[in-house]
C-alpha cells in the first residue's frame, strides 16, 4: 500500500545532481539526470551503506562515493562485476513539481 507525496519542484534538484528526502525509514535520494528524468532510490549503498546521493551522476547511473560501485538509476541494480540492488520508488513530475510514491508505513 503506498501513497503519493509531493517533495519539491523539479528545479530544486540540480541537473546531474541530487537531493535527499527524509522519511521515517531512512533517506531517499532523488536524482535528476542530464536529460531531465527524475529517479528515487534508497540513499544507502548495499555495499557499505554509502550515501548514493553524494555520488557522481552519469547517464542513467550513479557512482557511490565510498568505493565506486555503479548503480542503474532505473532499476537500482549494481552494474559491472558488483552485485546488489538498491530499492527504487516510483516518481512522477506534474506541472514542474516532483512526486514520489512511498509505502504507507514508510513516509
Amino acid at each position, binding site marked *: 500500500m503506498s501513497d503519493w*507525496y509531493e517533495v519539491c519542484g523539479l528545479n530544486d534538484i540540480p541537473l546531474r545532481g541530487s537531493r*535527499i528526502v527524509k522519511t521515517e525509514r531512512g533517506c531517499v535520494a532523488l536524482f535528476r539526470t542530464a*536529460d531531465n528524468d527524475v529517479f528515487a532510490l534508497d540513499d544507502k549503498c548495499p*555495499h557499505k551503506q554509502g550515501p548514493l546521493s*553524494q555520488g557522481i551522476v*552519469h547517464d542513467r547511473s550513479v557512482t557511490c*562515493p565510498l568505493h565506486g560501485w555503479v548503480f542503474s538509476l532505473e532499476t537500482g541494480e549494481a552494474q559491472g562485476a558488483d552485485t546488489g540492488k538498491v530499492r527504487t520508488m516510483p516518481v512522477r513530475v506534474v506541472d514542474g513539481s516532483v512526486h514520489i510514491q512511498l509505502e504507507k508505513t514508510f513516509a
Partner: protein
Amino acid sequence: MAKQKLVVIGNGMAPGKVLETLLEEAPGRYEIIIFNAESRVNYNRIMLSPVLTGETEFEEIIIHGDGWYIENNITLYKGHKVVEIDTSGKTVTSEHGVVEGYDKLVIATGSYPFIIPVPGHKLAGVLTFRDLDDVHAMMLAAKAGGRAVVIGGGLLGLEAAAGLQMQGMEVTVLHLMPTLMERQLDESAGYLLEKALTDRGITVITKANTKEILGDTKVEGVRLDDGTIIDADIVIMAVGIRPNMHLAQEFGIKCERGILVDDNMQTSDPNVFSVGECIQFENYTYGLVAPLYDQAKVLGRRLSGLEGDPFKHSETATKLKVTGVNLFSAGDFASGDDRHEIVLRDAAQGVYKRLVLKDDKIIGVVLYGETADGPWFYQMLKEGKDISEMRDHLIFGAAYAGGGGPDPLALVAGMPDEAEICGCNGINKGTIVTAITKDGLTTLDEVRTCTRASASCGSCTGLVEQLLALTLGDEFDANAVKSMCGCTDLGHQDVRRMILAKNLKSIPELLQALEWKTSCGCAKCRPALNYYMVCAWPDEYEDDGFSRFINERVHANIQKDGTYSVVPRMWGGMTTPNELRAIADVADKFKIPAVKMTGGQRVDLLGVKKEDLTAVWADLNAAGMVSGHAYAKGLRTVKTCVGTDWCRVATQDSTGLGIKLEKFLWGAWAPHKLKLAVSGCPRNCSESTCKDIGIICIDSGYEIHFGGAAGMHIQGTQVLCTVATEDEVMEHVGALTQMYREQADYLDRIYKWADKVGYDYIRSVIVEDADARREYYDKFAFSQKFMQDDPWKERVEGKEAHHFGAPLVPKKIEEMV
C-alpha cells in the same frame, strides 16, 4: 548453527587461492582468521623479480588489497608469526600473544631460502631473495652501485642477477654445476642462456664452489675453493629453498622433508590441513605456483564441504622472467636408449628447440629463443598425446601442425578448450574465450581484470593477445593506446592535446567534438576532463562541481558513515593559541566527535554533519582560517621544521620558506595531490625527500628535490637542482608545478609522471632552459589569480548552494487505496 572458525597460518599465494575458492563455493561458512609473519597483504611473490628490475611496482602485484579482507570479513593479523599450535585445545598463538581458537587450521608457511653455512654467511650484506623486504634491501644496496655476487644459477638466482644488473650493479653469478639451470635446461640451452647473460654484462662462473664469504663486519668479497677471490658489496644466496615445516613439526604434526599431507591436503591431524611449498605429497615437494594452486583448489573445495578430484602430482613448466631471454622447459629431458629426440637449431637467430619422445609421446620440452609453442607442447605432454601422425613437422610448432603454410593464430586456434594458457592462475583457453564473448572484452587489460589470465608473471601475454585476435577478428588492435575509460578510445594525452588544438572550452563541447560514446561521460572521465579544462583555461572555464568527486564538490572529505571531515590550513604547520581556541570552540559548538592531528602537521575535525559544514567554516573563517584542501587533487600541505628560528643546526629559514611556498601554491588544482616539505638542514626532519617536491636547506642555499612517494609506493626523491636564493626556489617550484599540471595524466603523482617522461627531461626544461622555466612560472602565477579564493568563504556566502540543499520533507497529496 554457529559459524565454524577457520584459522590460516601464512598469507602466501597458496592460501590466497584456497580462500578465493572457499569464498566462491561457500561464502559465509567460516569465520576466517589469518596470521602472517610478513606485515603485508597477499601479493604475487612471483612478480618480485620485475619489481626488482623496476619494470613493475609493488602495488601492481597485490592480489588481495586491504579492502578485500574488509569486504570478506576476514581478520588478517599482519606481522604476527605463529609460534605455537595446540592441536588438542585447538588454538594457535602468535609471537605477540594473540590466541585464536579454530575448528579447522590451515598451515601454509611456504618455504625459506637455504643458506650455505660457509664462513661469513652471517655478515651484513648477505641477502636472500624471498620477500619484499629482500627486494628493498637489494634495491637499497644497488643505489650505491658497487658489486654483487649471486650464489646459485637457478631461476631465482638468475632473476636476481638480471634485476641487480638493471639496477646498475656489476654482477657475478656463481654456479656449482657446469651449466646454468641444469634442473630445467639441457646443456645446449644452458649454454645459450649463459651466453645471453654474458652478452648483457653479467659475469657467469660455473663449477664455482664457494668456500668463504670475506669481510670484517660486512661483505667484502667471496673466496672460491680454487682460491679465486671476487670482490663484492653484497652476496645473494639463491641456492635453493626448504619447506618451512618447523612450526608444524614442533607441535606434533607429522613431517619428513615437508609437512606430510594426503591427496585431500589433510595432515596427520584430521583438523589440520596444509598447502603450498611447506608440504610434502608422496615423495614430492614444490617450488612453483601451478601445482600449489591445484592443491589450493582441492583444499578450498574440501573446506566448502564439496566433493572433488583429489590432488595429483603433475609436471610443471618453467619460464625464466628475465626480459629479453625466452626459455621454456617442462618434463624430463635426460637422454636414454628408449628415447628419441627432435632438435631444431637456428644459430643466427639464437633458437634452440628440443623435444624428448618416448613411445611416440612427448616427455620433455626445452625451448630457447622462441617459446610461443611451449604451452602447446606442454599440453600434449600432460595429455600423453600420441604424436606419430605429426612427427615430421612437430618441432615447427602449432602453426605448421595442419600441414601447409604458417598461420600465426593456428597455435591458439588448435588448442583444446582445456589447454592451460595461464599457468600461474590455472586458466584455460575455454574460460578466456567465454569471458571475451560473454562479457564483451576487447583489451588485454579487461581480460586480466576479468579472468586474471596473464595478470601474474605475464609470460602468457602473447597467447592471451592471440586469443583476443582469434575471437574478435579485426576488432582487436594490440597497439591501441590505453583509453581514458569505456566512454572513448582516446588516451589522456590525446584528449589534453585536442582540448588545446581544437580550443574546446566546456565538457559538453568536448564530448561532442571528440565523439564520446556516452551521453555525459562517467565517474572516471568526467573528473579528469574537468581538471584538464581548469588547467587549460584558468580564466574562462566554469568549474563543473557535478564532475567532481564529492570531496572536491563540497570541500570536505566524506567519511565511512556519510559525515565529513574538516581540515583548516595551518600554514607551514604553524598555528596560534587563537586558532586552537577557535577549533576547540567549533568542536564544542557542533558536537564534533573527533579531533585529530593529521600526518600533515595540522588538525582534523572528524564526523561533521553535512548540514553543519557551512556553519563550521563560517566560525573557522571568523578566526582567520581557510580550507586546507585536505580533499583536493591539488596542493595539500607544506610541512616544515623549526629552522633557523629555533634549531641550533639549521642553515636557513625553513619555516618561513614553507609558509611562503604554501601561500603561493595553495588553491592550485593538479592531476593528483601535491605535497611539499622544507627541511632546515640535511637531517631532514620534515621528510622532504619523500615528498612530491621537497626542499633541503644547505649552507650555500637550497637543494630542490622532486618525485618522492611515501604512500602505497615508497621512493626517495631525486635532486632537481641547487639554487642560492628563496626567489629562485619559488621560480623553480612554480615552474615545475605548472609543467606537471599541464603534462601529467589525471591521477598521476609527480613521480609517476616523471617515470613516464623521464627525470632528466624535466631537469632539461626546468633547470637548463631559463626561458621555458620563466614561461611555466608565469603561466602558474596567472592561473593562481583565479584559484586563490577560499572555497569555504565562498560557500558560506552562498556559492554553489545547490550542492548543500537541505533535506526535503515529503507532503502527502494523494491516498492510494
